[in-house]
């Protein structure tokens, strides 16, 4: 449950609380006078719950003292990726279900086209999100490399990406970090335009 990574191999914060609970439970059981088994089990369980409460208290405090992490700049974690995959699978299932309904005569072909259109659009949207996730990761990796290697100066900002002639020339913004607009809004790393002022953003990678 703790979001902090430990520096010691194999020892995690929760282990500390488990040990503490076990010791406290042992002490409590030894000190308990009525010795029927159900009493001892209850005592142990209650002390275990208290240990859990202590662990949760740590969980309550830890984020407040951890280094500040900007919520909007989180790359897609594994869990989020898994959830997007699940979302996509559900949408595909819904499309399959509609096809089944059409075969059973529960949906007319015209209605079928209209209803699947919506679902297909959603599925394509999710697929795009999953695809762009990989490019976002690259941005984060490059940034961390910069930080760790330290001495290496930041790469000169590349020339703006070639823009199709049809697109109007919007002011190009040179961002210090991926996705930050001059107006101050932090956007997704792969965003091309600021979501609040609409200015064109600098893309770190293509």
């Amino acid at each position, binding site marked *: *449950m703790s979001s902090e990574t430990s520096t010691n191999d194999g020892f995690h914060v929760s282990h500390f609380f488990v040990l503490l609970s076990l010791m406290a439970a042992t002490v409590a059981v030894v000190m308990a006078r*009525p010795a029927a088994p*159900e*009493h001892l089990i*209850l*005592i142990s*369980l*209650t002390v275990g*719950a*208290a240990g*859990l*409460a202590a*662990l*949760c*208290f*740590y*969980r*309550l*405090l*830890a*984020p*407040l003292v951890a280094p*500040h*992490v*900007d*919520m*909007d700049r989180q790359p897609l*974690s594994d*869990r*989020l990726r898994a*959830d997007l995959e699940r979302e996509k*699978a*559900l949408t*595909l*299932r*819904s*499309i*399959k*279900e509609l096809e*089944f*309904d059409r*075969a*059973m*005569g*529960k*949906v*007319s072909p015209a*209605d079928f086209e*209209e*209803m699947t*259109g*919506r679902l*297909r*659009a959603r*599925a*394509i949207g999710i*697929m*795009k999100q999953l695809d762009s996730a990989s490019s976002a990761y690259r941005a984060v990796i490059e940034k961390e490399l910069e930080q760790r290697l330290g001495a290496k100066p930041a790469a000169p900002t590349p020339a703006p990406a070639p823009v*199709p002639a*049809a697109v109007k020339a919007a002011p190009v913004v040179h961002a210090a970090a991926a996705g930050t607009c001059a107006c101050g809004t932090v956007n997704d790393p792969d965003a091309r335009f600021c979501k609040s002022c609409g200015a064109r953003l600098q893309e770190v990678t293509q």
Partner: protein
Amino acid sequence: MPALGTFTLLATFVVASYALAASIAGGRRRSRALIESGVGAFYMTAALMAVASGIIIHAFVTDNYAIKYVQRYSDVAQPLAYKITSYWGGLDGSIMFWVLLLSVFGTIAVASNRERHRELIPWVVAIMAATEMFFIFIMVVHNNPFDTFVASAPAEGKGLNPLLQNFYMAIHPPSLYTGFVAMTIPYAFGMAALITGHLDDAWLRAVRRWTMIGWLFLTFGLTLGMLWAYEELGWGGFWGWDPVENAGLLPWFTATAFLHSVMVQERRGMLRVWNVTLVITTFFLTIFGTFMTRSGVVQSVHAFGEDRWLAGLFSGFMILLLTFSFAYVIYRLPLLKSRHELDSWFSREAAFLVNNWILLFSAFFILFATMFPTLSEAVRGQRLTVGPPFFNQWMRPIGLVLLVLTGIAPLLAWKKSTVSNLVQQFTWPVAALIVTGAAVFALGIRVWSSGICFALCAFVGATILQEFIRGASVRKGASGSDYFTALVGLVARQQRRYGGYIVHLGIVLMFLGFAGQGYKQEKDMQLNPGEQNTVAGFTVRHDSIAVTSDDQKQMITGHVTVFRNGKQLAQMAPARWFFAKHESQPTTEVAIRRAPGEDIYIVLAAYDIGTQNATYAVTVNPLVNWIWLGFGILAIGTGIALLPERAFAFAGARVPEGVVTTSLLLLMLLLPGVARAQTVIQKDALRQQLEGDLMCTCGGCLAPMNNCPMAGACHGLKEQREKVNRMIDQGMTREQIKAAFVREHGGVDVLSAPPDEGFNRLAWALPYVAGATGAALVGLVAYRWTRRPAMPEAPAAAGAEVPVEDALAARLDDELRDLD
């Protein structure tokens, strides 16, 4: 120890308030640190409540009578299991149990949805923390389970009410509470979606599973309650329309409505305001139900007692809840408005609208009828009783309409059904309906509601069977496998739909059981040893009365033998148990012999140990076991709908050839005999009617004479029965006897239904009015939908991106093809 318990409750309140504050601040400022901290605090409340629960259970187990709550509900001789279940035996403990369940389920919900619905989580935590705070506040300020005796503690405990000392106590309350508490989570997610404005279908997906789980436990809890009443209370029935029973039923109706209308939102994007309203209403009704049973607002055998302060506090919370929730609904109305229209009344959307109307009407009606006595007393100062006859008169036709809908709706198409469509779908089920109706009539069954119910059960059963068969055919054609594999694959790939059909099948079986009540028969027989008497083909012979005892109780058992057509069926032993310290409230140990066709149900009503003379109340309940079986099937269906897809991974595999025939043969060998229908014998009709019309005057059971749970030990009931018999012998009519009782009692609350006059007309008229208004509203909304021009769907791709979209579309088609 008790001080530690109180401290834990206080600490939980403080931590919950921190969770509330941190979550709101974190959500508004988009600060991950605060949000994570709030989540950690919420987990901590769960751990702390576990500690508090451990402390109180330990107190029960170690017989710590310094704590008032423990002394009130436990004693030394009580078995360990009941000492533990006494945790939720009283008001204070039940509130603590509620908070425990809320914190644990909330923790699970938050932990499993943290990444997927990141924007919603802070508000979900905030709302659940606020609810916890309310209940803990009640406990700390007014109903602390850890309160101790100020002076010296009594040496002995009082003991749990004997009626509660059976294994149902271990499962019925926890299941019901789980059902209630689980409805908080959809509410929290719904409000979070409203607050953040993220009103796409994502919140529905988070919430649907929890609503299903809560609904399953609520249904389980209600069925267990019915079983408990049937097996332990001894009046031969299973549902008395008691206010507390109704309190559990109200959120069941709205949750069922929600589970159905959510499908419309997912498929057509309609009913979004309505779904949010349903979620709010379901949660409100769970709180209202809790309020009803703990405030003394309604009279009930089940109730925890009267408490003005508690009533006031709950009322304040409910008003706050409604104001806050609907304020947000109104605020977000522009975002919630539907973009689609209703194309035809012969569509599934329309069927779901009607379904919702009926379910909500049922909930409203039951709520109104339950509160009517209180209303009447407040407005006119006259106390009256609204009992089973009133409820049954309304709920029977409503139930039948609901049953019809269950059959019709799955066969209708989305958007609109054509005539050829309708003919193709309805031919076989309507044939089944007509055939069964004719058979029922030919067999001489004249109880109209039961007869119609049988025919409708056949109709719905045929629609379900047809769905399975046709679905398997389609799948067989698409996948090229055999029927059996196709059938398994069908259920595996469309879990929710076919799980839902199985749930409907369970409901059909339960209705079958309900229909059997239409011709149940009862008879009281006073017998000397060796004598026998007959009811509905069963002959009961009284053999002896035995007196035994153990640590806790004295047991008086009557031994009988039951025959049918000359053949001995069973030896049964109904009894009465007298618990130490509760001798004035003996429990009725009913003897039941169960069979698919009917139950024979025997209660030892009275006895004389000296002469070995015994009086038995014998009831024959046709088809009642189909109710319990129906629930089992309903639970299986829900389980199928809830299981993750991974569980059905085997469904793609092909089944070996011989397996199908072998399994079917085995199944046929195991099936018991078919239910036998009973022909009706109308005996003592007038007496039976009056026992339903008049309330038992003992003042304790608050039930009509034929439902009194203390039958046998109730002296008032015996005298009242004799009085009724005397009046019938004198030749008085039903109305005259009722009037005589009203005169003697000094009020109309001796009647089980309000007389049809004056203010009481409101009770009879309002359901009509409400139903008509509801129908009119639904019709109006649907009509306006048909008038509104459909807004075009946002084009799936902008012009400049066509090549990219094409590539993605091709990939999508590939993935669809690969999908089973």
